[in-house]
């Protein structure tokens, strides 16, 4: 089962939008092991009082479907990440995927700066859109469902990213 560490951005997206009657996060949870850093969970709890998407994330944590993990502090890495001024959740998401225990995990991230820094650190990462493509190619999702998920989250990405993803998925169908 694919192991994923979700940054807050894609988690928020996946907990808000539906495809084929289910939340995007539930389609992912059906075939992947999802982990979030403790700092992202802390925000889920705070925001859960105000936002339904945060409540949905919290419910999945409470049900044990999304695992919460606190990264082991790494002074060297922290010094590097501090240079970029990341939020606590981003710091922990990058730290987790940098740890040996999560070397086989993919960081799911939609933020430009976090993506670039994860690349510099050699951390394997995917945009949420590319995770959908990956799961379609792996046979975990049908291409039609993949397209539905991409359409559902359309407002959260630049148009070119969406259209490019749909073209890739179109090739998977034909």
């Amino acid at each position, binding site marked *: 089962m694919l192991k994923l560490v979700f940054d*807050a*951005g894609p988690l*928020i997206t996946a907990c808000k939008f539906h495809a084929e009657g289910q939340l995007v996060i539930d389609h992912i949870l059906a075939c992947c092991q999802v982990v979030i850093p403790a700092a*992202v969970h802390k*925000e*889920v709890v*705070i*925001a859960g009082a*105000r*936002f339904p*998407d*945060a409540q949905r994330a919290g419910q999945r944590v409470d049900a044990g479907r999304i695992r919460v993990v606190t990264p082991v502090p790494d002074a060297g890495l922290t010094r590097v990440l501090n240079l*970029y*001024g*990341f*939020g*606590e*959740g*981003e*710091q922990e998401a990058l730290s987790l995927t940098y740890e040996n225990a999560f070397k086989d995990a993919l960081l799911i991230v*939609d*933020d*430009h*700066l*976090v993506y*670039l820094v994860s690349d510099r650190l050699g951390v394997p990462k995917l945009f949420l859109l590319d995770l959908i493509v990956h799961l379609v190619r792996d046979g975990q999702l049908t291409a039609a469902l993949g397209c539905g998920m991409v359409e559902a989250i359309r*407002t*959260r*990405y*630049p*148009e*070119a*990213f969406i259209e490019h993803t749909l073209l890739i998925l179109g090739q998977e169908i034909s």
Partner: protein
Amino acid sequence: MRTITVTLEEKLEHFVKQQAESQRISPAKAIEDMVRVGFETRLKQLYSRYVQGEYSLGRLAKELGLTTWDVVHLLEERGWATHNLPTASGHQSS
């Protein structure tokens, strides 16, 4: 909503009094309005750094004293793009 006490230097106190009188609102409401304007101004400054990829979403939230969930909802309410990925035109789209 919480009530807080602020100490103003004399010229600011006069300014608040003048604003309150001219708009026929209480001094507290005048200060509240100014803080709101200040927040929106700061949000625009920080958002500009975010869309240029200089700040991450978490940094934007941290600078505003909010959670990332708050910020995403805040941007959506304003019809602003919630992502900071590059676009074909070089500008952010919603």
